[in-house]
């Protein structure tokens, strides 16, 4: 978005550094430094020496393997659901149907809703005495309310979380994809039409390859966010579905052990980093393009 704008007179590096410096310093002080301090906590014993005790405590914990598994399962289900949903929304908005601006507005509303609020919203739908059962009963589909959020039916709990998170976070993917679509010259769409490509084939063969940079951004951003958000999981599943970020929070606030909490954060960092690398490898564009 900014290539080739360097003016001859403005080539000096001093001004941009002066403009960027404070922001960078701020992030270093308030994000990077505490991040390093937190990571040190993961390896620091009571007497300040290096120890692997906290990592052992974490891996030995009842919830550890479940948390990793659940985190990955949720990720694998949520991210593709969001991409598909957002792609459909984005293509609708981009097709300039009448009222497309309003559709974009409505679809984007969840962008400003927190995972905590979204979790509570969907709790009112999925709880035993909630709206989903009410609707199903009114339609005559069920006779007795179904218990959705029970440990005995983890698949349903996961389904509820996937729905809540897809509802909430699709908006971010949508915004990225619509922005990406606008960078594609309209000729491509029209040319495809001319050759009689059906909508689906046009989407698959023409649009998706051109959208690749945006899809990559969306995938990476969503994956990273998905690792660290868990309030919806808390609101809907309570203790039934441990996830890594939730365990980190529990260890720090409930069990009051910042060391084990930091160890969990380390796991998150590793997972998010690994997934980002995988995406960059598989989708194969350079790091800088993605950051835009």
């Amino acid at each position, binding site marked *: *978005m*900014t290539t080739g*704008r*360097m*003016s001859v007179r403005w080539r000096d590096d001093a*001004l*941009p550094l002066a403009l*960027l410096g404070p*922001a*960078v310093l*701020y*992030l270093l002080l*308030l*994000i*990077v430094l*505490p*991040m390093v*301090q*937190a990571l040190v*906590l993961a390896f620091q014993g009571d007497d300040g020496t290096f120890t692997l005790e906290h990592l052992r405590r974490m891996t030995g914990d009842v919830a550890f393997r479940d948390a990793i598994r659940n985190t990955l399962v949720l990720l694998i289900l949520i991210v593709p659901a969001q991409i598909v*949903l957002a792609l*459909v929304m984005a293509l*609708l908005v981009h097709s300039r*149907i009448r009222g497309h*601006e309003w559709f*974009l*507005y409505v679809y*984007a*509303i969840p962008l*400003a*809703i*927190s995972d*905590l609020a*979204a979790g*509570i*919203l969907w709790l*009112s*739908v999925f*709880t035993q*005495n909630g*709206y989903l059962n009410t609707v199903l*009963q009114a339609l005559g589909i069920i006779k007795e*309310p179904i218990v959705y959020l029970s440990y005995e039916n983890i698949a349903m709990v996961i389904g509820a979380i996937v729905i809540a998170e897809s509802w909430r976070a699709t908006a971010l993917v949508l*915004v*990225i994809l619509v922005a990406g679509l*606008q*960078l594609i010259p309209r000729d491509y769409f029209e040319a495809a039409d001319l050759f009689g490509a059906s909508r689906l084939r046009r989407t698959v063969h023409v649009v998706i390859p051109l959208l690749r940079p945006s899809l990559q951004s969306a995938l990476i*951003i969503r994956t*990273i966010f998905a690792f*660290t958000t868990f309030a919806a999981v808390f609101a809907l599943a*309570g203790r039934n579905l441990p996830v890594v970020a939730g365990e980190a929070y529990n260890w*720090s606030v409930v069990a009051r052990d*910042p060391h084990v*909490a*930091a160890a969990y954060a380390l796991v*998150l*960092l590793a997972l998010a980093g690994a997934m980002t690398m995988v995406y960059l490898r598989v989708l194969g564009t350079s790091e800088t393009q*993605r*950051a*835009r």
Partner: protein
Amino acid sequence: MRLPYAVDRALVYAVALLLAAWVLVPLYFIGLAAFSTPDAAYSYPKALLPVAPSAETMRFFLDSRGVVSSIVNSFAVALLTIVIALLLGAPAGYALARFAFRGRDAFAVLVLTTKMFPIAILSIPLAVTFLQLGLYDSIVGVALVHSAMALPFVILVTSGVFVAVSHELEEAAQTLGCSRWTAFLRVALPLALPGLAAAAIFTFVISWNEAFASTILTLRSRTLPALVLTALDQSPITFKFAGGFVMAAPAIAFIFLMRRYLLNLWGGR
């Protein structure tokens, strides 16, 4: 095979409306729950239409001590966050938009890394530092963390805004005798203002929604999400529903206000 045009259009609109319903119906339900009697919250089956609207649940929520002050705190934190994040972020965004320089890739990586770490854990060492600095349990302390969270977004959005503001205009002003600073002030800034306002709203949203740092860094000066989060398991379902509604409903207004700049959030134009 091609569908007749009318059928095709109808299908497209049906899908578009269905997706709109998917977004709006849950919002409708939480509104319904928040504006019913507490008895209705426990009852089953629930009313699907607002047949007996009642402010009782909302009043119970707003009358609970801490709620009103937490809403005030949330506003104060969010406004302070906007000020800090824009003062630091807009110049950085401008620099990214106008200059090509070494280290920009490093900056992009830095921005991304800040999002890989749960804010709840970041807040543990910060709580210690803030205690020493007297910032613990203060609105300023929370705003510092929120503005650090929002800063990468502000930079991205503002750089998008400044890219859209023609760089040639600024140069033209300079050839007409303006200094670089006055050229920026007279030409670029006015054109960028609506976009900066959108960035401000988005910053507000980030702060308004953040629960975990606020929970760990405060004790009395709770923001609304922090209050609701700590009360999540311990409050009547009516409190949760009313709290969920109060947190979610402003989204409708926020997104409306910034609807033209939504695409700037991710570097589109």
